[in-house]
């Protein structure tokens, strides 16, 4: 049986308007699912059940009054715990912000709240969004609903797992080097990272500002289009947000892929890619070909260097962004410090985990006098070359295609001791963060272990529409019905 919590948001929206269900019903359904599975999945750090119930009732009253509400009205959703929520503790998965209660809302949530969406709670993540397995959270790992012994991916592991397990209908995450698309792939849901600047970063607790992008988790492409449309657009509180025409990205979703020119990034189907991933992606290519898309191999000659450049630029920005956690104004404060330097270093020593410290040190070093040009300067040049690679590719192609991640979900603890192996999880997702282009991970089947594989589609700057249209065509053609065993059992 299908519970309300397992339906896509657009179906709930229809039912609310047809009087077939209420937002309160949907919220209760999610809360029951959380109750049933979250002890094992551990996707949520905080569940705001009372607020969610109250909000859902208020929205239902407006439906009863026949108000014309936006598509997000009454949809239960979860937010990654790097997105600030007024009055609701927001930790970034870190001890240093364990007690931090933001005095303001991030813009994406402010917009969704305004549109009537219902917040279920805040989801677990790698500390300050640094990680690819969700094992770097100070509050423990998240378990992949498809196999509780495996990771959900990261850093937005909690949001991906929550949507996969039906604990939330929608979730927001953040994608700095793949932190939405990679966990979406590993959890078998749709993860969409729009163009950098399309969604305001105001209230997104910064990891690497020039790369951080708010992204969405949904169980279908149509919902991704609706959710992004609800939060996109210029924000006067974010100087890097782009001025774009407001539009509903769900329009034109059914246009199909006939005539679309798609470039296959051949290097991404070579060494280091699991056979199950390769097979599922190649099968998807065949399907898209039957639907009328044409394929050729695409070259991104500098993509090989993208990972190295990323691991200079992101830590450099992080070393500066995380300097503010010093125990003076908010968050953790070390006890009995003898002076301000002692206060700063002990607060940070106690408050940050190993991966965060590693990246702060990397970044501090990369920006230091005498090293700046060799590291940061050089990495910026690589970034420019990657952007040019994409520009050249998009002269020939409407989209690029490849796997989202070289592997499906790996076992908890498997890579935890080997940062470099972990960093390779994001090797296919990082290039579009460097370029700021939109890309999506859409489920394209299961591997031989029964774990989901994600297909990545990458588009031109601000061409979300084409990315979504192709992803939707593939999704409709595949018609995947498999659900995590946990969901089958709970439903």
């Amino acid at each position, binding site marked *: 049986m299908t519970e309300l919590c397992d339906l896509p948001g657009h179906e709930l929206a229809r039912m609310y308007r047809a009087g077939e269900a209420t937002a309160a019903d949907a919220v209760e359904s999610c809360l029951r699912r959380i109750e049933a599975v979250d002890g094992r999945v551990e996707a949520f750090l905080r569940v705001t059940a009372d607020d969610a119930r109250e909000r859902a009732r208020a929205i239902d009253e407006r439906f009863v009054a026949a108000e014309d509400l936006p598509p997000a009205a009454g949809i239960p959703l979860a937010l990654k715990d790097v997105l*600030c929520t007024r009055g609701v503790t927001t930790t970034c998965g870190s001890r240093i912000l364990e007690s931090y209660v933001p005095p303001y809302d991030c813009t994406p949530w402010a917009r969704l709240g305004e549109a009537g969406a219902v917040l279920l709670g805040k989801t677990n993540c790698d500390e300050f969004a640094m990680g690819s397995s969700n094992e770097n959270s100070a509050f423990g790992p998240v378990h992949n609903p498809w196999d509780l012994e495996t990771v959900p991916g990261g850093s937005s592991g909690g949001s991906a797992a929550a949507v996969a397990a039906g604990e939330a209908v929608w979730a927001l995450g953040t994608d700095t080097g793949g932190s939405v698309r990679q966990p979406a792939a590993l959890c078998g849901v749709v993860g969409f990272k729009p163009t950098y600047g399309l969604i305001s970063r105001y209230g*997104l607790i910064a990891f690497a500002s020039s790369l951080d992008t708010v992204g969405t988790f949904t169980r279908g492409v149509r919902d991704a289009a609706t959710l992004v449309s609800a939060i996109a657009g210029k924000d006067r*509180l974010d*100087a890097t947000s782009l001025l774009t025409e407001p539009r509903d990205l769900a329009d034109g979703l059914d246009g199909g892929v006939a005539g679309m020119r798609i470039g296959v990034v051949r290097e991404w189907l070579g060494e280091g890619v699991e056979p199950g991933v390769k097979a599922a992606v190649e099968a998807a290519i065949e399907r898209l070909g039957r639907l009328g898309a044409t394929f050729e191999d695409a070259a991104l000659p500098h993509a090989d260097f993208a990972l190295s450049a990323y691991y200079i630029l992101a830590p*450099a*920005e992080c070393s*500066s962004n995380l300097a503010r956690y010093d125990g003076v*104004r908010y968050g953790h404060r070390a006890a009995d410090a003898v002076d301000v330097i002692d206060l700063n270093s002990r607060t940070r020593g106690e408050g940050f985990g190993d991966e965060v410290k590693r990246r702060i040190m990397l970044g501090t070093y990369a920006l230091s006098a005498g090293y700046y040009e060799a590291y940061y300067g050089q990495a910026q040049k690589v970034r420019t070359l990657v952007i040019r690679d994409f520009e050249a590719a998009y002269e020939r192609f409407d989209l690029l295609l490849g796997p989202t991640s070289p592997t499906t979900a790996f076992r908890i603890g498997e890579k935890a001791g080997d940062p470099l192996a972990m960093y390779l999880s994001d090797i296919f997702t990082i290039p579009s963060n460097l370029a700021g282009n939109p890309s999506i991970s859409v489920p394209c089947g299961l591997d031989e272990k029964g774990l989901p594989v994600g297909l990545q589609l990458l588009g031109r700057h601000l061409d979300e529409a084409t990315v979504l249209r192709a992803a939707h065509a593939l999704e409709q053609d595949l018609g995947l019905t498999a659900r995590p065993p946990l969901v089958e059992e709970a439903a």
Partner: protein
Amino acid sequence: MTEYEAVVGLECHVELSTATKMFCGCRNEFGGEPNTRTCPVCLGHPGTLPVPNREAVERTMKIALALDGEVAPRSLFHRKNYFYPDMPKNYQISQYDLPIATGGHLDIDVDGETRRIAMNRVHLEEDTGKTIHASTTGRIAEAEYALEDYNRAGVPLVEVVSEPEMRSPEEARAYLQELRALLEALGVSDVRMEEGSLRCDANVSVRPAGASELGTKVEIKNMNSIRSVERAVRFEVDRQREALGRGEPLVQETRHWDEDRGVTSSLRSKEEAFDYRYFPEPDLPPMEPDEEWISKLRAELPELPAARRRRFVESLDVTPEQARILTSAPVWADLFEETVEAAGQPGRAVANWFTQTLVPQVPADHAAGKADAIVEVLRLVADGEISSTAGKEVLVEAVGTGRPPSEVVEERGLKQITDLGGVIDDVIAENPGPVEQFREGKEGVVGFLVGQVMKKTGGAANPQEAQRRLRERLSS
């Protein structure tokens, strides 16, 4: 013995008097209850982002244009990273290798000579908060705790940097006076050194006279008035000359000016200098002003002090020194022009009242808008109703307090008696002896007779007038 010449460059920080802070909507005003003019953005809360204040960017460009600098077609904010608790993000949003403007110059007058000081750059950044060290001994190192006030954090701060082209402490002073006058004329800042809205660091070195290479540079901090900059530069130049005279090498360092003791002392050496790890601020897009915007700002520039000085000298017959004093603040220059026009008196005569009495004795903000009172006092003196000595007194009181000049004259009994006819007749009738002596040619006696007139009028007569009238009567 080698003659050493001083080489001085000044780095001034100017707090802009915009309505709101640089990157958030908090009110930008001096003082206030600690931490009341703050918000999540200027407190550096997680997730907040800076949004540039357009007015602050425009004012910075205006300062650059007024200095004849080149506004860059593309400039960037950078992050300057260092840990200090009065800086909420532990980095300052500042500018580095792509400032808003470069070049330009400031003309200064010293001893009647004009020197052109080249400018290095004008850039925009945010101010920090203030740390108050709770120390019973007055020494920071012995403070038990510190308190932070973030009201000032995020206030727009413009850095104006000269080339090292000043050659004496006097030139340093003149440069600061001229820069302050220029900033005031632009109306971009309160430029109050005592409140910290104008702050100045000095880079000082010496070298053998005529040499082209620069000597070892010392940066001096903590001067809080133009006078203390001049004093600190003088002390430092002397110290360096003496050290070199003794054959001691100088070290590149930052030194602290001690106002009470009148000395500088070492704060940190070059080796201990911070590594600020500058990198481009990813939260802010580049600033790319087009020609149209720059031209619009250029057209909005008011008449600048140098031009005004020239005009005062050339068309109002004011001396160059008077012109310098009159244009030291726009309030004085404006009042002066209004007074000349309304009083219909020669510029130089009016200027005397300003430079000798008003400017030295009345605070500029008290004088603002009081042209009517000044004109009235000048008229009273010109009509002989009060003496010019009394005029100075009335001017200071009336302009300083806002009371009407006539009331001050009345209250202090300063009115001169102009109708002396009767008194003169009486004095002549009552002093036949001296009158006779005068008529016989004993000129000196007139002083005695004037004294009698003054006595009879209780001092209210104009003595020159009395003498003139006595002579007139006695020689007829």
